[in-house]
């Protein structure tokens, strides 16, 4: 079938006008949407889609926004799970998981990082052993968002210790609702607890929940991580209805709030550049020539970061091959956040010593000062970002490694505690 912007816009508009009603229950509406092919139109027609080019998704998005219709579930990492299963899963897995992920009935978490493998995710040592008729899992995962309310986990585990690092891994879907899986919150230096540690002791996974083949887990992991990176920029976490009435809007707000609750401090880790001018005026520091220079440097970084991101989006939308401007965003955010923390300190003077209700802006500034270090770590450290930029964008030689070819059991690892 031939898709054009006009035909797609007309078709989705007609369908939405005939079918959308904010008084639907959220799951009921999404099931209707999924059956219609307008929930994930870029997916294959065999699986709820219409094989539509992704370039047309913004048109469909516009029509959903115009009428105020709620889309399929995107909050949390459901979308990553669905995209991964769609690409690598069996038909059985697709039947079982795709629809319930799109409706939002199932929630997911990602069990990749471990205490001993942070930047080096492929060095995972959580083990999966096939015993009797099922996989038995033992190990520890960390930095797991949403693990405390997830139904299912995307698990990376080692199935072969004699194979080289990347070749001994397998990818599983693990039921999080079993006593062998214990979830504990991690308290961060800013006092919040946004992530979890997951202790896995003899957890069980049926063989049909292995994704792809034994030993092919790294390729599947790469798919999940690629979708994570791609969506990091455009992930919509705003509710569709804001404060509008209607059962569907209300249920969507609850769904998003549940996922977002632990991340209330995220704006602070980016430095709160939006507060700088207002604070500078309030404190009178805007007339201090030294501070003015620092504010200007921050504004230059912040504005040019924004414009660079927009250049990248425009290039992507125009179907141009990705240029360097698309790979810099993560690293630049770190620069902006650090510069903002420095400026907020200068603006606050001695008040930068104080937190909570004694601190500037009821503690918001204090939270900026102790949250900014996170931006240089989460989702790939600044150092890893520089490696990626230099190797993939600039074509510089890869880091020499001593662990890629020898059996994993012979690879040196951090001393266990």
């Amino acid at each position: 079938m031939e898709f054009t912007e006009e035909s797609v816009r007309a078709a989705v508009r007609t369908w939405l006008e005939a079918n959308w009603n904010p008084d639907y229950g959220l799951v009921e509406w999404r099931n209707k949407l999924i059956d219609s092919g307008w929930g994930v139109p870029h997916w294959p027609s065999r699986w709820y889609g219409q094989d539509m080019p992704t370039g047309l998704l913004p048109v469909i998005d516009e029509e959903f926004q115009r009428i105020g219709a709620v889309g399929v579930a995107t909050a949390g990492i459901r979308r990553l799970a669905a995209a991964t299963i769609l690409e690598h899963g069996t038909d059985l897995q697709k039947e079982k998981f795709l629809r319930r992920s799109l409706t939002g009935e199932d929630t997911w978490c990602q069990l990749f990082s471990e205490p001993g493998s942070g930047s080096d995710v492929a060095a995972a040592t959580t083990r999966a052993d096939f015993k009797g008729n099922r996989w038995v899992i033992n190990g520890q995962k960390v930095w797991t968002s949403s693990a405390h309310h997830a139904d299912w986990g995307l698990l990376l585990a080692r199935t072969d210790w004699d194979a080289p690092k990347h070749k001994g891994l397998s990818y599983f879907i693990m039921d999080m609702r079993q006593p062998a899986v214990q979830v504990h919150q991690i308290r961060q230096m800013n006092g919040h607890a946004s992530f979890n540690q997951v202790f896995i002791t003899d957890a069980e996974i049926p063989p049909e929940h292995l994704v792809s083949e034994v030993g092919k887990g790294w390729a599947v992991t790469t798919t999940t991580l690629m979708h994570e990176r791609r969506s990091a920029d455009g992930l919509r976490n705003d509710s569709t209805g804001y404060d509008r009435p209607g059962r569907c809007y209300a249920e969507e707000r609850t769904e998003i709030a549940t996922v977002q609750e632990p991340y209330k401090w995220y704006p602070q880790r980016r430095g709160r550049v939006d507060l700088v001018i207002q604070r500078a005026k309030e404190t009178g520091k805007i007339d201090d020539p030294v501070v003015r220079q620092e504010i200007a440097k921050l504004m230059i970084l912040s504005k040019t970061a924004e414009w660079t991101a927009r250049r990248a989006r425009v290039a992507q939308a125009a179907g141009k091959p990705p240029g360097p401007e698309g790979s810099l965003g993560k690293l630049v955010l770190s620069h902006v956040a650090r510069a903002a923390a420095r400026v907020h300190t200068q603006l606050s003077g001695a008040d930068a010593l104080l937190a909570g209700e004694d601190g500037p802006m009821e503690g918001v500034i204090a939270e900026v000062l102790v949250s900014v270090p996170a931006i240089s770590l989460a989702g790939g450290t600044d150092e890893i970002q520089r490696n990626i930029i230099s190797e993939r964008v600039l074509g510089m030689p890869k880091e020499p490694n001593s662990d890629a070819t020898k059996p994993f059991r012979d690879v040196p690892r951090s001393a266990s505690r």
Partner: protein
Amino acid sequence: MKFGFSGEQEEFRTVLRRFLTDRSPTTEVRKLMESPDGWDRAGWRALNTELGLTAVHVPEAHGGQGFGYSELGIVLEEAGRALLCAPLLATALAASAIMNAGTEDEQAALLPGIAAGDTVATLAVAEDGGGWDAADVSLTATRSGDGWRLDGGKSYVLDGATADLIVVLARGPQGLSFFTVAGNAPGLARRALKTIDTTRRLARLTFAGVAATPLGTPGSAAEPFARTMLQAAAMLANEMVGGAERLREDSLAYAKMRYQFGRPIASFQSLKHKAADMLVGVELAKAAAYYAAAALDEGDDDLAMVCHLAKASASEAYLQTAIHAVQIHGGIGFTWDNDTQLWFKRAKGSEVLFGDAHAHRDAMMRNWAA
């Protein structure tokens, strides 16, 4: 606001790059920078006639191509990349001042010669104090019979010793005023200044009762002058990011080719991270330079802030890139024969021309005056 170049603009850039690679190789740059004038009239005229470089942003009604600052930005970026030794920036800037300040008749008289490449023009603003603010202007314009005469000095004038036409900012009885003066006018003494960056020439001009023609109504130059300096900041920023990117690419190529300790130095993480940081610096400065040019074409509520921001960003990025480029080249990068020094000096000169990063940061903060 546009955040990408059109197919036609990309095509235009490709053509320019091909021409300039051919006409302005570093052998040619080195030859011209050793020459008395710093550029070659015949060569520049041929290139300008073929490509219409000084016609780009001049209206079609006045013999130009009628494009905007985005297209002029592309020209300047490519010229900066090739380190083209020519009075391009000087002439384009003078044309902008004429478009901002001149009446239709004055524009019709002055612009066609510039667009056709017959007239090499420049803009004289700064004086011995080296400031580009209206407050720094003390050269005086006085009535003399039916005409006007100028007395005083100008300095840091781009290609001031060789330009055919000089647009002069003066203080007259009614206030700030623009005038035009022929390069060979009686009473005008021109001295070429020794510059760090010999690929871009500056001159000190002394006016002793020089007969001058008003450009626009005398006393009404404040607004067109302010606009001209924003355009100057955006133009130079675009030229600078072209040079910065060239330096960045050349250093990267060198790092991949140079072996020490049995491996290319590009494989050392200290260099990889430096190269990544250089890319970030140049890409951010490019985003600012492009945005400023687009803002001049499309209008922007914060136009002044944006243009100052672009120049401040380019000043830091170009010099920092040049410092890294010398470092990556090692000892050879400090030699006269290595081309890195050519761009290093252009970076240094451009950093200061029309005001350094500090001055532009201070100016951009006026956007948020308390």
